[in-house]
């Protein structure tokens, strides 16, 4: 499903080249649940951005669902992001002036889906994340956990193949964090690839496959349940 081959990402910092990702090889299958961990500066976020096609690798290939994403044009990449990838951010990234419902339907609006269908689909999503009664609340009227659930609903309304979560619980208390993780895991059980980037070993340890990045290289790739 996802294959990274010899991926490099080099940043120019002053007159120095920084290798954020160094000859990375990674294969992820359909329905996998993996966490990416590592110290700050290890390249976690860069890897996530490349997986989410927000960033282009300096060299190497990225195959998503059999197509070489690196060869696509800007517009085709945008289209791929819209159809195949969902993002969940640490700071939720909800549009403050829009209600929960309007935030969730944003990808459908961008895709030009007619209003009646949008209404039905956002309704189902609100139900799924347990925010049926909060449809017309603005983000400022919602708790952190509720905001993140709105964000998850928005990330998955296009029924993407991959869900990328960047520190999804980083800004939440334990209880809300747990709820959010449960929702994400539930989505994974339904077949979505769930990739969680975190530096919280407790959250990272929940994943079936755990990848550790140090200085842009994978230092460990462990599958199966082990107690952290």
């Amino acid at each position, binding site marked *: 499903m996802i294959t990274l081959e010899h991926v490099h990402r080099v940043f120019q910092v002053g007159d120095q080249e920084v290798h954020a990702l160094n000859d990375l090889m990674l294969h992820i299958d359909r329905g996998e649940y993996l966490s990416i961990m590592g110290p700050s500066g290890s390249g976690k976020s860069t890897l996530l*951005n490349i997986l*989410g096609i*927000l*960033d282009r690798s300096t060299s190497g290939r990225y195959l998503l669902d059999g197509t070489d994403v690196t060869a696509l044009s*800007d*517009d085709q990449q*945008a*289209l*791929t*992001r*819209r*159809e195949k990838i969902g*993002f969940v*951010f640490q700071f939720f*990234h909800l*549009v*403050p*002036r*829009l209600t929960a419902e*309007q935030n969730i339907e*944003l*990808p459908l*609006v*961008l*895709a*030009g889906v*007619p209003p009646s269908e949008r209404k039905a689909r956002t309704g189902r999503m609100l139900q799924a994340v347990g925010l049926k009664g909060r449809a017309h609340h603005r983000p400022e009227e919602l708790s952190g956990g509720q905001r993140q659930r709105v964000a998850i609903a*928005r990330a998955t309304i*296009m029924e993407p193949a991959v869900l990328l979560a960047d520190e999804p619980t980083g800004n939440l208390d334990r209880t809300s964090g747990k709820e959010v993780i449960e929702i994400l895991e539930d989505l994974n059980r339904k077949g979505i690839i769930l990739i969680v980037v975190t530096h919280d070993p407790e959250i990272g340890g929940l994943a079936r496959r755990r990848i550790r990045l140090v200085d842009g290289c994978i230092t460990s790739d462990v599958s199966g349940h082990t107690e952290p």
Partner: protein
Amino acid sequence: MRPIDVLRFSLMALQGNRVRTMLMLLAMSIGVASVVLLTSVGEGARLFVVNEFSSLGTNLVIILPGRSETAGFGPSSFMGETPRDLTIRDVMAVARHSAVRRTAPISVGEAHASWQRRVREVPVLGTTSELLSIRRWTMAQGQFLPAGDPELASPVCVIGSKVRDELFGPHPAIGEMMSVGDRRCRVIGILGSEGRSIGLDPEELVILPVAFAQMLFNTNSLFRVLVEATSREAIPRVETHILSTIRERHQGEEDVTVMTQDAVLATFDRIFRALTLTVTGIAGISLGVAGILTMNVMLITVSQRTAEIGLLKALGARRSQILMLFLTEAVVLSSAGALLGLVIGITGSQIIGRIYTALPVGTPWWAIAMALGVAIFTGLTFSVLPARRAAHLDPVQALSHK
């Protein structure tokens, strides 16, 4: 993305930042309002002059005694007058042409008009019956001068309504004998009050048959001759006819000046149009300023909403979509501002029209179209740069923007 959704998204974004929206609406509306207001007043001034001239009559050719061009230093430049008068007979000769519909010789002067013991100094105008139609005057009472031989000095007069009020007061004036200078004449008509035009107010006039007036003023010469051509196209023919007739009758001298109403009118029309355009152009500067303000405000908006733009990109918005969202926002804003300005401008010009009733203030359609067009165009052009900046933001950096 459906156009209606683009519009809805823009409207919500505008609602989200009321102060900014109000500020831009204000800037745009001031620009448009000043353009509309100044063109309305300018057009009003132009129409005022045009109306004044056309109330003198249409297809008019005016004959003035004497040549208009300076003929150098000679005896005539001391006298300032031509040795040959422009006479009633000249007019009768000029009238004999198929392209001439009407002629009216005019002789003017001042005289004491009196009735019983009331005396008043009035402007006196000697002419013939055809002046009534040429100048489009109407009669309030009685009749105008009788048609017939213009050389006949019938002792009758037509007076303006103001003269009637001042001399006769509440007494009926028609049929009364009044004195004009050292002559007596019978009042046969009173002029209506409309038909005011530059220089002469018919309300204050006493009108006599031209021969009678010449007798009164002791002269053979005419002050002006008004000649009405049958149509606009006939005017050049009438001009040449007048000049050749006068030359024949004045021993080969073309000692008259012929002016056409149209030429004078066209000149004024051009001057006023140029003035209006100048004033409009000055007002247009404020539209330009509004455009630059639009650009600044849009740039601030883009940097304020950087994180949102990053999000839209993450959600799969194409560059063109983001460009479109921001352009729509600017266009919605500038059109709303333009409409507001239009309302203010038209209301303002209506108010000015009420205050200065003589000025026919009207907003020409081209000014409305131009103001709206320019407003929307500047709104659009000046927001292209900010919108492009938004569209080309790097999503990773935009997302991490606080």
